[in-house]
């Protein structure tokens, strides 16, 4: 592109072309959704199986795997930030949303010891639903919004379930809000990369 004079019609074409170039890329590749989705899903099921076998230390899967997931996420995010050539507004808002969510999750997990599994898992499912519903809105991605709503419904249903079965509700919530929409988001991201 040269620096030359232009007519107003050419100006409009340049503006249109540049805005379309910048906005059409999806701001998230879904990798962390898939990673955390499977990590929480497997942890909840392992905890459920061990709980069913009356193995008392089954809950240890959480304090071991979650901090490891947190460290991996921190390293992965730092590397991705280094690679980024451009920061979009949506990317910036998603960053604030997920940081806030991470802090809220940390506090909700801390409450486990005080309020017990039942009320704490209910809060976790509400948080999963909330963060995916809003992310779906920001990314204009329907599967995330639907996943968020399903997570709310599952959280409501979990209120009537006994303590052990809360883990199955948690697995279902993460499957609907993270795993399925995460894979769909990643497929969409890859197809856009190939355009």
């Amino acid at each position, binding site marked *: 592109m040269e620096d030359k004079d232009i007519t107003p019609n050419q100006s409009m074409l340049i503006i249109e072309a540049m805005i379309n170039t*910048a906005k059409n890329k999806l701001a998230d590749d879904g990798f962390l959704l898939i990673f955390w989705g499977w990590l929480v899903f497997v942890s909840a099921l392992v905890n459920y199986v061990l709980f069913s076998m009356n193995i008392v230390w089954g809950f240890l899967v959480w304090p071991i795997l979650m901090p490891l997931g947190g460290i991996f996420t921190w390293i992965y995010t730092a590397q991705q930030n280094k690679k980024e050539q451009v920061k979009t507004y949506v990317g910036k808002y998603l960053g604030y949303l997920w940081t806030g969510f991470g802090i809220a999750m940390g506090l909700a997990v801390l409450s486990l010891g005080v309020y017990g599994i039942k009320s704490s898992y209910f809060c976790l499912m509400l948080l999963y639903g909330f963060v995916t519903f809003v992310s779906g809105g920001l990314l204009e991605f329907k599967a995330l919004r639907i996943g968020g709503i399903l997570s709310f419904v599952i959280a409501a249903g979990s209120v009537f379930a006994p303590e052990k079965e809360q883990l199955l509700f948690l697995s279902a919530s993460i499957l609907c809000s993270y795993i399925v929409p995460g894979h769909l988001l990643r497929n969409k991201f890859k197809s856009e990369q190939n355009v």
Partner: protein
Amino acid sequence: MFKDLDPVLHSQLRLAVVSLLVSVNEAEFTFLKEKTEATAGNLSVQIQKLKEAGYIEVEKKFKDNYPQTICKITPTGVKAFEKYVKDIQLYINIKK
């Protein structure tokens, strides 16, 4: 008869840079170069002109020991862009 078009924005490359920057939060020099297909020298000159007009902020830092230039549109730049778009729309409508 017609409103005077902003001379800072009424140039192919500067308009392209500002259009990109209003669409994203901030962008690296290499991103702008890739999208506008301009030469590095020409792009640097135009970015400097936009900076002098107060339309963009330019931050220079190092990433992995390589210099990195990050450009970000300012509120003045956004206002100027919005006014420019209104002005050319007016121009095009009168011409029709």
